[in-house]
């Protein structure tokens, strides 16, 4: 494990417990967001990673090495650090600010210059800025420099403490894009503290929800939206966001038709044809007696083979494409559409047939995704009404 935190506790003198039994494993390249209200211990926990704070008990290991065995100054030079108030040195040029850690590490001058140029290019600012002072840059530009300052010495772990909290929404969004892009491109491991759920959902690969010094939930953004661990997490996400998130977290099981025309392989083709006729469909799914999906059969198969074969099992196709009922529509809809199937059988975890997704149902989903927001806006005067509408929408499908 790249970064592991075990049984961390932090108690301040006077008995105030800031962090309680915090356990977390972080893989290289993960984007971890610590989220919680103020006083939840998220910043405290983060600051223990570069030993800005000392835990009362518990261990933090980076690449297997206990950081309490490392020199704190050397440790901090290996860990990028971005703070809310940006903290650029006002008496140093942008160049000096960017190369601050390399200078502490005594890099040769030309390597530092080279790095300063690379870094400023990385955040899409002109090279002329290198010789300016922080006060001559806008807040957003300053924080861009703040971000690359934390990357300039090839730090593998970057700690970010509400870095965009003080920026306006538009600047914040562009910086979020930037850090996400940099993180993915450079494979950095980021620990990002925020109290903004939107930010966490956008950026994180793993969200750590904290309250009162304890971990409430550790999960991916999708899991958090689908299965908030408790009421606190639900409230933190917010009702509105849960409703909005619904299209993207709808499972196949929620949109499938449950009344499926199916037949067992031992039946005669004659019977299959009759079933099709009665149900007004042109294909049948084949299951065994236990309901396990075996294959499918459509009207053309019957037409060609009516004379030679007798039972459904002789002519059915067993290379049937199916989806699981608990998979996300968002993840499957594209596959379904690309393959050009009219209907897709839906199975449960035991491969038992539970329903079918038709192209018509997919049209509904695409429609909801594109226009659903507008519909909701009209309803949103009354949140209760919106909730009900969404619930009914789910049931109807």
């Amino acid at each position, binding site marked *: 494990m790249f970064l592991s935190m075990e049984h961390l506790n932090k108690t301040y003198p006077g008995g105030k417990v800031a962090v309680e039994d915090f356990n977390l494993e972080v893989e290289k390249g993960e984007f971890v967001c610590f989220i919680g209200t103020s006083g939840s211990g998220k910043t405290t926990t983060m600051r223990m990673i570069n030993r800005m704070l000392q835990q009362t008990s518990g261990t933090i290991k980076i690449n297997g090495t206990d950081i309490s065995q490392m020199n704190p100054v050397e440790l901090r030079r290996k860990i990028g650090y971005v703070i809310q108030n940006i903290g650029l040195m006002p*008496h140093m040029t942008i160049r000096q600010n960017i190369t*601050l850690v390399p200078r502490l590490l005594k890099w040769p001058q030309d390597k530092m210059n080279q790095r300063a140029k690379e870094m400023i290019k990385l955040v899409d600012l002109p090279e002329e800025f290198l010789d300016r002072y922080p006060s001559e840059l806008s807040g957003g530009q300053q924080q861009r420099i703040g971000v690359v300052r934390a990357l300039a010495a090839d730090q593998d772990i970057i700690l970010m403490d509400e870095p965009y909290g003080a920026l306006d929404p538009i600047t914040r969004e562009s910086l979020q894009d930037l850090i996400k892009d940099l993180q993915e491109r450079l494979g950095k491991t980021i620990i990002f503290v925020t109290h903004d759920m939107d930010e966490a959902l956008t950026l994180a690969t793993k969200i750590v929800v904290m309250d009162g010094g304890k971990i409430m939930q550790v999960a991916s953004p999708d899991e958090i939206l689908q299965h908030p661990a408790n009421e606190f997490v639900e409230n933190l996400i917010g009702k509105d966001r849960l409703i909005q998130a619904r299209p993207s977290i709808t499972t196949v099981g929620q949109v499938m038709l449950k009344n499926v025309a199916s037949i067992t392989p031992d039946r005669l083709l004659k019977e299959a044809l009759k079933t099709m006729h009665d149900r007004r469909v042109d294909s049948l799914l084949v299951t065994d007696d236990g309901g396990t999906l075996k294959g499918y059969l459509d009207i053309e198969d019957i037409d060609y083979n009516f004379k030679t074969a007798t039972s459904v099992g002789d002519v059915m196709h067993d290379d049937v494409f199916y989806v699981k009922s608990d998979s996300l529509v968002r993840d499957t809809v594209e596959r379904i559409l690309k393959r050009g199937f009219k209907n897709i059988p839906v199975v449960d975890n035991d491969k038992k047939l539970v329903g079918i997704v038709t192209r018509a149902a997919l049209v509904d989903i695409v429609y909801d995704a594109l226009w659903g927001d507008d519909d909701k806006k009209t309803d949103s005067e009354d949140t209760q009404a919106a909730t009900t509408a969404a619930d009914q929408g789910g049931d109807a499908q």
Partner: protein
Amino acid sequence: MMHFLAVYGLPLVGKTWQHIYISGISLGLGVIFAVPLGIALTRTKRTANIVISIASMLQTIPALALLAFMIPIFGIGVKPAIVALFIYSLLPILRNTYIGMSDVDPSLKDAAKGMGMTNWQSIIKVEVPLAAPVIMSGIRLSATYVIAWAALASYIGAGGLGDFIFNGLNLYRTDLILGGSIPVIVLALVVDWLLGKVEAALTPRTSEE
């Protein structure tokens, strides 16, 4: 005026030099002692209050009384004068150094530490440069005090421009009083102006001009 200079010109130069010598050494010692102490105090907040209270208390001792106190310890002459003026120079420098260092934006100190600066690097590369204007204004204030009070040092036989003033007072000679006072004022103004230049030079640039 010309007459005064013709008669007292040479002693005036000598006394002025003495005056500069006494105040210069006192102030120099004050800077050497109070600036590092002020910096050190920012690392121990609790001690800081005690030390600054003591320095404030010393400041309230009347100048003449302090000079008189020096006589039993150091006798008369230049040495006790320098010690007394040194004590006076401490408080403004100490307090301004402490305040200047403490007022450096905490997020800058946090950033400096978090990026891996040692305590010493943070002081030298971040805190002192940013506190320089405040520290310098403390030094300028001290310089003005020390130059003015150095005139009293003549009272315990240290010499300096105070000799003219005290002689004038004893002999009811206005020209001697003025002849001593005006150079003191001019000296204080010139030194303050020079230190202003130093302050400007030490104030770090924060923008391209």
